[in-house]
């Protein structure tokens, strides 16, 4: 029954070495596919290509549920980044990606190389990167590692983005004890390309030269993809050598050199070397083109002496690309890369045979058929349990606070709501001179002008993990809906999303249940809002010793503002303006910030998301923005009406006198997180027009208050001054980072 050991294992390989690379079950598949035992180089290649990070083996079945097409979609998932048409022959190219595991182990380099990697995904397609975003989740502010991680991650993101000269225009940061052992660092890049000059990875013809360009290959990041596909346990700090080291100066040169080469008629196809480096880039290029590839590793530019074939194939050294050029055009690439002081070397050619053949020191060290590595990688339908439904929370069962103003003050100084200026002040938000709105701006999305035009892109990242934990399906819907709402509130037509699906260990059915629920919720929202998924990334095993992160399907979304003069924000409310709420307020407090801060409870069903209402209300608000009736507009999300009002009042330096009527208890009306709502401010005359139009459009509108004065109050009481709010909002994070006890104990 058992085969003789010498047939099961190649020379120098034993069972333990095999299990360090793949599972026993996967090894059986390899033996069957090859009809022989793989050598160490080949085993290493299977190990990284079949890692969760590269193969999406647990998630692929479910990702197929996303809508990925639409009239603006040029390239959806499957390429390095999504590509959407933004008119006038131009395209926006974007993607979001995680660098969670490396950032926890080595925060500066982990975050920096996350930025570098996502930039390469975008310029590989022929786009000049024009904006960076990030979505960060850290542990409890009082956790001993949190401050060091915040400090390292923000310095790393800034250190890389600032140097390459792409503005970091926005993002979001949450603190939650659920991320104590597994922080999330999700970076998004957006680029601009001509829609008829998009470059892709698939090899087109056999016999074309394969060029290696960029930085030299070293021993850093070996098995990074495998590390990112496992839980953390004891000794995860020992994994530091698997973290790559970034060099943004080389990246900047690489961007310029690649874009220069792309303007010449030389490139056939191009792929960056990201996770699993030379292995995944060469395999992906060849297999997506239905061809084979032959590389001579002696020609690979090497940073260190005596590197083995195994090390070269598994290194994740940064700032490298693989380019298949048209025969006879090698010299064009050589001229340009030499000008930029970058390595360039012909290391092989494409071939008809559908195999990956590697030579090193005159010997064939790998000869594998490509199909089993890539297209036929294992695909798992992992068992999942749906999350248990939670009861909804009724405001009448909660005690009403005496002073809503005090509650608002505490809310605005809480870790989720407080200003993150400490972080984003380290990011160059203005380089490229086209930033119209960024983290510093009173706007629900970042806004970046399309260079030389009056058009602009609006960009946002969103996710509310506490909703996803409470109800993965509704939480998934909400993440997409909030992104759509933020783009709308900035005056944009939402186009498409990218995503970064961060979850725990998929081998646990309850985690798989969270994943499936979130994906299905997101897919439903994307369909209802005509908001397709064009790119994305999955990060699983964000788990330490059996404790998983809250499910965090981060959404990165892009919209188009046809005329930048019609962008909207919430910083221009003036005394005398009428303040209105668009959308219905039922006072939803389940899984709300209010409940967490003042009842110390995290239970309850999250606010339901009615996608038809979301669309109707959003389309109405966008119409009012374009009609020029709104002085200020802000979406309602975390902290509800009160949170949005505080943002608007602080940015506008103008208070609000709210009047509350109706049956909903005042605190639920003030802090409830019902969806599909916007806070707007306009003149009394415009308010009349808006109410009339809303009535015929079937959109609920409530006059909520009047702008003016130095404070925010409700029914003449519950006042809190803007000065106090500003101090609470802006003061928390600097105090937290200085380790002041009241700030670190805030959570």
């Amino acid at each position, binding site marked *: 029954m058992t085969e003789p050991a010498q047939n099961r294992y190649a020379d120098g390989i034993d069972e333990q070495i095999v299990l360090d690379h793949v599972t026993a079950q996967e090894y059986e598949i390899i033996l069957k596919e090859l009809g022989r035992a793989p050598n160490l180089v080949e085993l290493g290649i299977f190990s990284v290509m079949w890692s969760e990070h590269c193969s999406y083996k647990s998630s692929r079945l479910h990702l197929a549920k996303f809508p990925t097409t639409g009239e603006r979609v040029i390239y959806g998932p499957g390429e390095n980044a999504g590509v959407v048409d933004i008119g006038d022959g131009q395209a926006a190219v974007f993607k979001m990606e995680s660098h969670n595991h490396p950032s926890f182990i080595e925060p500066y380099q982990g975050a920096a190389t996350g930025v570098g990697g996502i930039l390469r995904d975008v310029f590989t397609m022929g786009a000049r990167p024009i904006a960076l975003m990030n979505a960060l989740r850290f542990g409890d502010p009082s956790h001993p590692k949190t401050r060091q991680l915040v400090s390292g991650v923000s310095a790393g993101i800034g250190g890389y983005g600032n*140097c*390459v000269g792409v503005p970091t225009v926005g993002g979001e940061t949450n603190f939650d004890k659920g991320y104590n052992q597994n922080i999330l660092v999700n970076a998004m890049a957006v680029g601009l390309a001509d829609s008829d000059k998009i470059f892709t990875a698939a090899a087109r013809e056999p016999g074309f030269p394969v060029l290696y360009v960029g930085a030299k290959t070293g021993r850093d990041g070996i098995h990074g993809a495998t590390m990112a596909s496992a839980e953390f346990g004891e000794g995860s700090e020992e994994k530091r050598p698997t973290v790559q080291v970034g060099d*943004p100066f080389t990246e*900047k040169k690489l961007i310029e050199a690649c874009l220069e080469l792309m303007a010449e008629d030389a490139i056939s196809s191009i792929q960056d070397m990201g996770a699993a480096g030379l292995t995944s880039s060469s395999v992906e290029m060849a297999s997506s083109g239905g061809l084979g590839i032959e590389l001579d590793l002696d020609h690979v530019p090497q940073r260190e002496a005596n590197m083995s074939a195994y090390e070269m194939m598994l290194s994740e050294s940064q700032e490298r690309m693989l380019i298949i050029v048209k025969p006879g055009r090698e010299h064009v690439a050589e001229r340009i890369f030499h000008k930029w002081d970058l390595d360039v070397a012909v290391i092989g050619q494409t071939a008809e045979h559908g195999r990956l053949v590697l030579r090193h020191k005159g010997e064939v060290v790998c000869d594998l058929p490509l199909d089993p590595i890539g297209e036929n990688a294992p695909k798992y339908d992992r068992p999942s349990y749906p999350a248990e439904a939670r009861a909804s929370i009724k405001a009448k069962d909660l005690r009403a606070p005496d002073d809503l103003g005090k509650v608002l003050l505490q809310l605005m100084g809480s870790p989720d709501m407080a200003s993150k200026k400490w972080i984003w002040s380290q990011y160059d*938000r203005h380089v490229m*001179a086209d930033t119209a709105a960024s983290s510093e701006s009173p706007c629900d999305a970042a806004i970046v002008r399309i260079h030389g035009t009056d058009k602009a892109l609006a960009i946002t990242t969103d996710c509310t993990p506490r909703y996803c934990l409470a109800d993965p399906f509704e939480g998934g819907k909400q993440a997409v809906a909030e992104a759509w709402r933020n783009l709308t509130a900035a005056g944009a037509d939402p186009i498409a999303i990218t995503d970064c699906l961060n979850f725990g260990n998929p081998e646990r059915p309850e985690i798989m249940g969270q994943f499936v629920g979130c994906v299905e919720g997101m897919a439903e929202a994307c369909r209802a809002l005509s908001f397709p998924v064009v790119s994305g990334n999955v990060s699983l095993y964000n788990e330490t010793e059996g404790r998983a992160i809250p499910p965090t399907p981060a959404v990165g979304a892009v919209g188009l503002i046809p005329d930048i003069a019609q962008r909207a924000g919430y910083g221009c409310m003036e005394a005398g303006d009428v303040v209105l709420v668009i959308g219905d307020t039922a006072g939803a407090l389940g899984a709300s910030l209010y409940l967490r801060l003042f009842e110390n409870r995290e239970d309850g069903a999250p606010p339901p998301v009615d996608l038809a209402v979301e669309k109707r209300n959003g389309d109405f608000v966008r119409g009012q923005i374009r009609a020029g009736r709104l002085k200020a507009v802000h979406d309602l999300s975390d902290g509800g009406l009160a949170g949005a009002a505080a943002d608007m009042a602080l940015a506008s330096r103008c208070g609000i006198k709210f009047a509350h009527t109706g049956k909903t208890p005042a605190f639920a009306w003030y802090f409830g997180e019902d969806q599909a709502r916007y806070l707007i401010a306009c003149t009394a005359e415009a308010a009349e027009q808006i109410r009339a139009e809303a009535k015929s459009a079937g959109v609920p509108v409530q006059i909520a208050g009047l702008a003016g004065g130095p404070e925010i109050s409700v029914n003449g009481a519950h006042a809190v001054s803007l000065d106090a709010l500003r101090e609470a909002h802006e003061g928390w994070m600097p105090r937290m980072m200085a380790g002041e006890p009241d700030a670190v104990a805030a959570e």
Partner: protein
Amino acid sequence: MKTAVIVYPGSNCDRDAAMAIERVTGTAPAMIWHGESALPDDLDFIMVPGGFSYGDYLRSGAIAGRSPITADLVKRAEAGTPILGVCNGFQILTETGLLPGTLMRNSGLRFICDRVKLTVESADTAFTRGYERGQELIIPVAHHDGNFFADDETLDRIEGEGQVVFRYVDNPNGSARNIAGVTNAKGNVLGMMPHPERAVDLTHGGTDGLALFESILGKVTA
């Protein structure tokens, strides 16, 4: 007007500089690669843009200060051609010795990107004649090494000679005597950490930098 912007490997405000110049002159500047041995003849203005020339390796501006094109830049400065260095350009100009002082790591040790308030200390320079003395401007900064330092004797001298052109109202980086921008003794070379080219267009949130370009590019004759 004949203008040029120098491009070093790692420069990243070169396009922004070119846009600001073109906005005022109507003509795009020549973009000169650092490896060239000479700048074009008869230049009326040269800009050394911001960024991270040579990745800030060794020390900000140190390698660019010794780059092939820089030798000709120094000659032009000595011949009186107006030269503006912004951010990394300022760091490079101090490395060449054209400008006094040096730029150290920010006192807060972190990179800082913000809109800062400056006062115009001298409206008598070719770069600032479009402003009034004492005028307050809002101009963005974005740097890690913007902490201007010189010994007291040098500081006394440059203040006495009217070489201090801009000061910070709220010093963001620890700069000696709140200095944000200085000229050489002759007044034809200006270095400043804030980015006037990021404040020339309403989309930027302000246009306080425009008058600087208008001044030096001959649109202000006051």
